[in-house]
């Protein structure tokens, strides 16, 4: 157990260092970092001052050391566009993205599991064929396309839902479905196959022979055992909800970090871009670590392997 935790911790640390290297080079990729770090209307003196304050004449390892020191002390520099610390701007918007991610996670899990279970208990039937179609479409139709189609039908044609923005529960519906789309299809597929595997086992046959009602066989006996692979797939999908927010938030004008990233990139607000990419990635990596450690506690097969 200790060995597993230590190796996972080291792996996480390596990943975070890797992310910091990518983020560090982001602003230096185009050659002249000042061209990216400063708005085009800045004066030559501003440029020189920035170059000196960033230590751009130092060798790269020294620059990287300064960058890491900034990260550790929580100082990511000021956003050019907002004129406040980039971390504050980020933290201001991050809860909105998390709210949407949570809503998508609920939609994906409920939708995927219910359709998958229905497909599995009537294998080969109409619902089952629907399951296969949903799983295929989920992989083939990008979520932003689903988002636009939802807007077209439910907002523009039927006028049931608001097209964009974040105000009240109604505005969550379409972005959450669009963002959940891909994961829901994957979960549907996984639930179906996992349930089918479990339904074949002896203990399900035994439960049926004992005369356990079918409903109880499915939910109490089969579903509980089918849940492990479903949940491990689900934990992998969390990353998609946050990462996919870049596109979904742009479509639905959702005031989260996805939209903020796009705005920051187009306004060349690099301290902000660096902050968003680094903090979000680190957050997700730590989340994954937490999920993995939780699994090791729950499932002895993992920590003993």
């Amino acid at each position, binding site marked *: 157990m200790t060995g597993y935790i230590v190796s996972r911790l080291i792996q996480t640390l390596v990943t975070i260092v890797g992310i910091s290297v990518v983020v560090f080079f982001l602003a230096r*990729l185009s050659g002249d970092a000042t061209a990216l770090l400063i708005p085009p209307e800045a004066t030559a003196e501003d440029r020189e001052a920035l170059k000196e304050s960033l230590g751009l004449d130092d060798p790269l390892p020294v620059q990287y050391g300064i960058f890491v020191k900034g990260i550790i002390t929580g100082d990511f520099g000021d956003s050019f566009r907002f004129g406040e610390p980039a971390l504050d701007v980020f933290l201001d918007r991050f809860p909105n993205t998390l709210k949407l991610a949570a809503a998508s996670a609920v939609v994906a899990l409920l939708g995927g599991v219910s359709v998958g279970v229905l497909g599995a208990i009537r294998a080969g039937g109409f619902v089952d064929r629907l399951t296969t179609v949903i799983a295929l479409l989920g992989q083939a139709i990008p979520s932003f396309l689903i988002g636009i189609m939802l807007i077209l039908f439910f907002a523009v044609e039927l006028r049931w839902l608001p097209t964009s923005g974040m105000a009240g529960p109604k505005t969550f519906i379409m972005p959450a479905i669009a963002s959940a789309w891909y994961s829901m299809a994957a979960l549907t597929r996984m639930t179906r196959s996992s349930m089918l595997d479990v339904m074949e086992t002896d203990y399900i046959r035994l439960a049926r022979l004992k005369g356990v009602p079918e409903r109880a066989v499915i939910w109490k006996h089969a579903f509980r055992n089918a849940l492990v692979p479903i949940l491990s797939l689900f934990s992998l999908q969390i990353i998609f909800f946050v990462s996919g927010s870049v596109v979904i938030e742009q479509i639905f004008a959702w005031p989260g970090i996805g939209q903020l*990233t796009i705005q920051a990139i187009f306004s060349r607000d690099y301290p902000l871009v660096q902050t968003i990419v680094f903090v979000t*990635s680190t957050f997700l990596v730590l989340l994954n670590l937490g999920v993995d450690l939780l699994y090791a506690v729950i499932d002895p097969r993992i920590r003993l392997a």
Partner: protein
Amino acid sequence: MTTDSSSLPLDKSVAEPIAPKRASWLHNLRGLPVVPLTILLIVIGTGILAPIIQPHNPNEVDLLASLRPPVGFDGTWEHPLGTDELGRDVLSRLMDGAQISLLVGIAVVLGAGTLGATLALLAGYFRGWVDILISRATDTFLAVPFLLVAISVVGAVGASTRNLILVLIFMTWAGYARVLRSEVLRVREADFVRLAKVAGCSPARIIIRHILPNIVNPLIVLATLQLSAVIVIEASLSFLGLGVPAPQATWGGMLANGKAYLGVQNSLTIVPGIAIAATCLSINLMGDWLRVRLDPRFRQL
């Protein structure tokens, strides 16, 4: 178990050496998904032949003929799929979009597949610190929020088709490395690899002549599924304005333009939407078929 699965097909081919070649070739095409293949051939054909068969110049602006509907929705055959807000012919732009999607998709899959397979071969064969280094890098790339990092890198290096391809190769090789490394680990324990070692083959020869042919099947299946994923990513990035720069027509870019005209001219979003969905669905169905054909574990199903 590993020795079993590697020696089984060998025994079989020794036992049945006189199977007629032609019949087995036809047999291989069993269950070929005809509709997806047809759709793909149309997309590939229009993509390659775009400059010849385009009814109009895809970037020709004609403001007097803007926002025309497609045929069947009060449109004329002059513009079969209508025109966009600048009066550019949607069908011609769709063909250009097919070309770009295929170009980016195939280039990225080739690049990332080659890089990922090479690293997987090195990591899986040499083990030790090479393996640790490559595997940790793979983990890092698989752990980061892909789209977020991709758009910031594209934003930093500037949007162009070449940069887009390079960034996507840089961001997608890890998936190949992860899957293929475990395949290499399986194959390197097989008897024929040990025999090759005993016979004095160099590591390079063992990797290229003995291990690589045995991981080609999973590589092909993976590449097919990745192709549709890359096309979707390219469309997403172009939709955000961080993919292939305008005025070059792309499916994602057409969707982004069309979104502003929802409720005015819906065909501007529906047409490129159908193109993306149909193409990716067809590629996935072909990939599923290939997986069943190429993966021995599925063959008897």
